[in-house]
């Protein structure tokens, strides 16, 4: 029995090997590629033609035995031919970008051996490059752009009209008042840093709103507020914000412009400067709200070492672990933006946050629904009915980008 199996296997192997063996070809033969096609490249400005072919039998992945394919182009089937491009073996496509929209082109593809002998296939054509008015491969992007724009703009408009939009309570925010209070009791100043954010960073804008709140509390209690800056433009904005905030409870006399200072635009220089302030002035509360890089750790660790209450918030994901470890409260990513809405009630931020939230809700429901559908379709597929699985996959495919 065993022997029979073995001999059967042997025969099977021999047959398979025989089937794989290429048709006898004289050494040095070069056959042209098969099935050459040339069509207008879709979704473009009409500046390209896609040429494709099947590999020549000699193109077997060995660069020493097969050089590649030369693609020739001509305005007429009869020529004159010019080289449009050359690609290495193993490729079956070429995009010719040396063409003009509306003209007619013919193509031929030649297999080229290392000794530059060529075997041509074609000509094929005519191919006419044309410009398209809409990129059909980007329908999904268009749908999302429209949907998101609508949601965000609509909610901004509603917020502008004064409609109250609910924002949940955010933990770190209550701590702001407590922190200011504690620092006041201890008779210590408060330090506020924007990190290395620029004025056009959304998180800096959000931080300015929180600074205003902090400054109002400081003015009420008569607590000193120090704001060392890395960016001169952010500094100017901070000065304006604090000055206005001090006027609110009627204490403009307490405002000291020198307390909102410019340090340096050097990253480690800034960190060293802030560290120096922390060690010398021993603030009772420190706020790190803005965009931070590697200096986050240096500054927050120093703050921790002098025993200050620290509240941090940033959208810089890489720095969040260090803030979480060394600070008492940390506003994580979008939370920081929401916090500024919560305080400032700015219709723009509020409205766009609401619009984003609605989109998130749709995503959450969508993910859940697709998880159920996917599971069901896998079970049904195992039971022999692949219909649902096909639908499931097609939905996934709709999200494909290229």
């Amino acid at each position, binding site marked *: 029995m065993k022997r029979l199996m073995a001999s059967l296997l042997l025969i099977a192997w021999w047959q398979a090997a025989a089937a794989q063996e290429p048709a006898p070809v004289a050494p040095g033969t070069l056959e042209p590629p098969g099935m050459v096609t040339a069509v207008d490249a879709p*979704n*473009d*400005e*009409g*500046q390209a033609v896609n040429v494709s072919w099947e590999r020549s039998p000699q193109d077997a992945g060995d660069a020493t035995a097969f050089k590649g394919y030369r693609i020739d182009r001509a305005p007429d089937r009869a020529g004159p031919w010019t080289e449009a491009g050359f690609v290495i073996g193993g490729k079956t496509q070429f995009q010719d970008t040396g063409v003009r*929209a509306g003209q007619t082109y013919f193509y031929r593809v030649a297999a080229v051996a290392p000794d530059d002998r060529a075997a041509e296939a074609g000509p094929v054509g005519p191919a006419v490059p044309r*410009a*398209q*008015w*809409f*990129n059909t491969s*980007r329908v999904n*992007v*268009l749908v999302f*752009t429209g949907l*998101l*724009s609508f949601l*965000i*703009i609509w909610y*901004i408009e509603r917020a502008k009209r004064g409609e109250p939009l609910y924002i949940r309570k955010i933990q770190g925010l209550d701590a702001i008042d407590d922190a200011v209070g504690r620092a006041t009791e201890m008779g210590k100043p408060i330090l506020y840093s924007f990190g290395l954010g620029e*004025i*056009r960073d*959304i998180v*800096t*804008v959000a931080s300015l709103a929180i600074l205003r709140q902090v400054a109002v509390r400081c003015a009420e209690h008569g607590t000193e507020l120090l704001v060392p800056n890395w960016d*001169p*433009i952010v500094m*100017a*904005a901070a000065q304006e914000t604090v000055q206005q905030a001090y006027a609110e409870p009627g204490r403009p006399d307490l405002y000291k412009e020198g307390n909102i200072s410019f340090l340096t*635009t050097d990253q*480690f220089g800034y960190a060293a400067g802030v560290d120096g302030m922390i060690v010398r002035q021993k603030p009772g509360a420190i706020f790190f709200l803005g965009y931070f890089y*590697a200096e986050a*750790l*240096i500054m*927050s*660790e120093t703050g*921790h*070492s002098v025993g200050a209450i620290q509240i941090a918030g940033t*959208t810089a*994901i890489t720095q969040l*672990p*260090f803030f*979480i*470890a*060394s600070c008492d409260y940390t506003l994580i*990513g*979008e939370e920081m*933006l929401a916090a500024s809405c919560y305080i400032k009630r700015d219709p*723009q931020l509020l409205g*766009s*946050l609401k*619009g*984003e939230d609605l*989109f*998130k809700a749709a*995503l959450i429901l969508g993910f859940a629904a697709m998880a159920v559908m996917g599971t069901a379709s896998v079970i049904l597929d195992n039971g022999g009915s692949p219909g649902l699985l096909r639908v499931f996959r097609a939905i996934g495919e709709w999200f494909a980008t290229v």
Partner: protein
Amino acid sequence: MKKEIPLLITFLTGVIIVVTFFIPHQPFGGMQQRLLIWYSIVLGFTLLLGVDNLLRGNIRRMARRQAGWGYAAVLMAGFVICFVAGVVSLARHNSLIALNGPFMYVYTYMIVPLQATMFALLAFFIASAAYRAFRARTLEATLLLITAAIVMLGRVPVGAELWDKLPQIQDWIMEVPQMAAKRGIFIGIALGTIAMSLRVILGLERTYLS
């Protein structure tokens, strides 16, 4: 005038870039490429912005013999050395980064050690911060600590020596739960960026014009 024209420029360029994303037909396709080239050119000038501030301040400090003017002189000397080296490299080798040019000498023996060592300091700071600040004070902090410990051990060869399953656990943490949370966070950030971009184009968000 001082705000309207900038707002108009932002609106037009933003809208053109969005529209040309969907419409490849001329003139849109070419318009997009042109704007992208312009962007690249204009952005280069921002590299220069900080330089003037820096030099002016330091020259003033030197001229008035203010406190620390010696360091200002060092700064200016650094600027001059590097600048001259760059000009010589460009003139003699036709390239800033020709390996045998004086600019690359300044790069290799001054810029690289200075910048790299500044960042190497962080290793020490992270060590002392880890010691002082990483306490299992709350459930969140504890969780953070445990994952950090697994990743730190599982990611280096010694982890496999301690327990051969550790690298696999580390890989799994990175590829499944860690990745899932990051995906959520990045979807949120993407939505925030889209909203911000939209407000900027529509002229609702103007802080960048200060």
